[in-house]
C-alpha cells in the first residue's frame, strides 16, 4: 500500500514549491475558456509521485479539461502547467509518451480487433511492430487476453474498459490519467478496476483519477481535490478533510431506558446529546472518549442496547464542503449529516 499523504509533514503537495521534483503534475492557477465559456478558472492541481489523486466533482466541473491540459492535448489560456517538470505545450511528445490515459468513453476502434487496437497504441508509443510480449502482458493483467482476436465492436462495456486500461499501461507509463474509468460498468467490474488502479499505484505509478462517484474515491484516494465550476474547492486526504469538516465525532447510543442517556451531557468531552428517532446521538470531541462513556454509563446502571460510532462518509464530507462554499452551515464548526436531518 502507498503511504497516505501526511498534511503535518512536508509531504503535503500544497506545501510543495513550484518545480518541486516530487510533483509529477503541477497545475497552478490555470484558466481555460472555450469561446466565451469558462471551463477552468484559477485551478490548482498538485499531484505527488506514486500517489492516487482523485478529482472529485459533478459533471462539468472541469475534470476532463484538466486531464487534457496535463497531457498537453489542450493549451491553457493562463497559469503554470508542468508534467514531469516539463511544459506539455513545448515538450508534448515527451510528456505524452510517459502518460497512460483512459478517457470516459473507451476511445477504441470498433472495427479492429482487440489485438489491433493494442498494436496501434504500441506503435504510436514507440514499442515497434513486434510488441507481442507487452501486449500479452497488458491484456493478461486486465483479463482480456482471450478476447483479443475478436472485433472490439462486439465487446461488452466491461471488456472495452479492460481493453482501454490494457492500452493505457502498455508502454509502462509513469503517470496514469483515468477519466471516470468505471463509467458504465457493473459493481463487480468497477470494484475489480479500482483494485487494479490501487495495484498500479502500489507499483509506484502516479495516478490521477476523475470521478463524480464518491464511493469510488472512498478509500482509494491518497489525495482528494474537489472541483466545482472549473476551480478547485479544496485539497487534502480524506482523513484531514474529515477532521476539518467534522471536528466532532458522532456516537449513536440506545438503552433499555433511553432517558438515562441524558446524563451524558455532563460527561467530559461531550459536545451535545440529542434524541433523533429511536437513538440518542452524542457528539464527542475525540473518538477515544467512547469507551469511557460506556464504562461510566455501565457504572451508573444504564443497560446499553446500542453503541455505534459513526464515521462520516466521503459523501457527507463532499456535501459539507460544497455547502460551506455556498455559505451554508459554516459557522458551527461541526459538519452536518444530511441523513440525520441536522
Amino acid at each position, binding site marked *: 500500500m502507498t503511504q497516505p499523504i501526511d498534511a503535518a509533514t512536508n509531504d503535503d503537495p500544497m506545501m510543495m514549491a513550484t518545480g518541486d521534483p516530487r510533483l509529477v503534475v503541477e497545475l497552478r492557477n490555470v484558466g481555460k475558456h*472555450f*469561446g466565451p465559456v469558462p471551463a477552468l478558472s484559477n485551478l490548482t492541481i498538485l499531484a505527488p509521485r506514486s500517489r492516487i489523486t482523485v478529482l472529485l466533482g459533478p459533471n462539468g466541473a472541469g475534470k476532463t479539461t484538466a486531464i*487534457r491540459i496535463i*497531457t*498537453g*492535448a*489542450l*493549451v491553457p489560456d493562463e497559469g503554470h502547467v508542468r508534467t514531469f517538470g516539463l511544459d506539455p505545450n513545448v515538450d*508534448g*511528445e515527451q510528456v*505524452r*509518451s510517459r*502518460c497512460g*490515459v483512459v*478517457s470516459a*468513453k*473507451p*476511445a*477504441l*476502434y*470498433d*472495427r*479492429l480487433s482487440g489485438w*489491433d487496437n493494442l498494436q*496501434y*497504441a504500441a*506503435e*504510436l*508509443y*514507440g514499442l515497434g511492430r513486434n510488441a507481442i510480449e507487452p501486449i500479452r502482458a497488458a491484456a493478461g493483467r486486465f483479463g482480456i487476453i482471450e478476447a483479443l482476436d475478436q*472485433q472490439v465492436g462486439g465487446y461488452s462495456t466491461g471488456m472495452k474498459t479492460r481493453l482501454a486500461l490494457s*492500452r493505457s499501461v502498455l508502454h509502462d507509463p509513469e503517470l496514469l*490519467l483515468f477519466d471516470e474509468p468505471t463509467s458504465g460498468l457493473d459493481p463487480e467490474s468497477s470494484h475489480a478496476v479500482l483494485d487494479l488502479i490501487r495495484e498500479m499505484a502500489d507499483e509506484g505509478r502516479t495516478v490521477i483519477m476523475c470521478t463524480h462517484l464518491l464511493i469510488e474515491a472512498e478509500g482509494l484516494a491518497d489525495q482528494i481535490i474537489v472541483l466545482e465550476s472549473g476551480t478547485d474547492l479544496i485539497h487534502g486526504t480524506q482523513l484531514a478533510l474529515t477532521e476539518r469538516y467534522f471536528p466532532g465525532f458522532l456516537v449513536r447510543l440506545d438503552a433499555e431506558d433511553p432517558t438515562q442517556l441524558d446524563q451524558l451531557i455532563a460527561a467530559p468531552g461531550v459536545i451535545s446529546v440529542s434524541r433523533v428517532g429511536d437513538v440518542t446521538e452524542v457528539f464527542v470531541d475525540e473518538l477515544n472518549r467512547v469507551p469511557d462513556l460506556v464504562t461510566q454509563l455501565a457504572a451508573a446502571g444504564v443497560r446499553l442496547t446500542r453503541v455505534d460510532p459513526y464515521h462520516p462518509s466521503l459523501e457527507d464530507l463532499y456535501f459539507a464542503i460544497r455547502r460551506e462554499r455556498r455559505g451554508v452551515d459554516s459557522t458551527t464548526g461541526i459538519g452536518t449529516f444530511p441523513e440525520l436531518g441536522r
Partner: protein
Amino acid sequence: MNYRRMMTVMRTDLKQLQQSKDFWIPMALLGGLFFLVIPGVLLSVINSIGNIGTIQQVSQALQLLPQTAQDAVPQAASDGTKVSFVLAVYLLAPIAVIVPLTISTAVGSSSIVGERERGTGEFLAHSPAGVREIYLGKLIASLIPGYLTTIVGFGLYSLMVNLIVGPAAGGWFFPTASWWLLILWVLPPFLLIALSLVLRLSARVKSTAAAQQAAGLITFPLILIAYGQSTGALFGAAAVTLSFAMGAVAWGIGFALLFSGMRSLTRARLLGVANEA
C-alpha cells in the same frame, strides 16, 4: 516528424477500411462500373454491330477532332474500329479522374471528424503522435484506396480495350503516352488538391454527414476541372507537353494546399472542443 508513426496511422486507417465491407464493396462496384462495365458494353456493341449508318455518321464526326487526335486514329480501319478507338482513347479518359476523386474524398471526408465522432480522437490527442503525422497518415490512407482502384481499373481497362479494339486496330495500342502521363503525373496532384481541401474540412466540421456534404461541393468543381483538363491534355496538339505542364502546376498547388492544410489539424479539433483555434 516521425515517419514511422505517420505510416502507423496510415496502416491502421487502411486496416479499418479493409474491415468495412460497407465501404469497399461500393468502391469496387464503382470502379468496376466505370472502368469495365460501361466501356466494355459500349466498345463491344460498337464492335459487334458493324458499319451501320449511325456508326458511319459518328465516324464522320471524328473529323471535328484536332488534327493530332485524328492522326492517331488508324486510318485503314473500319468506321466501327475508328469510333471504338476514339472512344477508348479520348472520350472515356475522364473515368480515370472521376473514380479516384469520388472514392478518396468519401474516405477523406470522414477521416478526422470520424475520429471525433467515435471518441477515438481523444486517444490520438493524448498519444505522442504529432498532428502533422496524424494528418499526413490520414491523407495517404485516403489517397491510396482511390488511386489503387484507378491503377487496377486502368490495368483492366487497358486489357479490355486491347482485347476488344486491338485486333481490328492493328494490334495492342493502349495505353497511349498521354494516358500514362494522365495516370502517373496529372491525376495524383489532383487527388492531393482534393484531399488537402477535404481533410481540412473534416477537421473543422461537426459531423461526418456535414463533411460529406461539403466535400461534394469541393470536389465537384475539381472533377469538372480535371475532366476538362484530362480530355484537353489527351486531345491537344501538344498533348504530352500540356500534360507535363498541367501536372506541374497541379503538383505546386497540391503541395501548397497540403502544407497549409497540415496546420488546420490541432489536438483540440481531434477532441472536438468548440471554438478552439
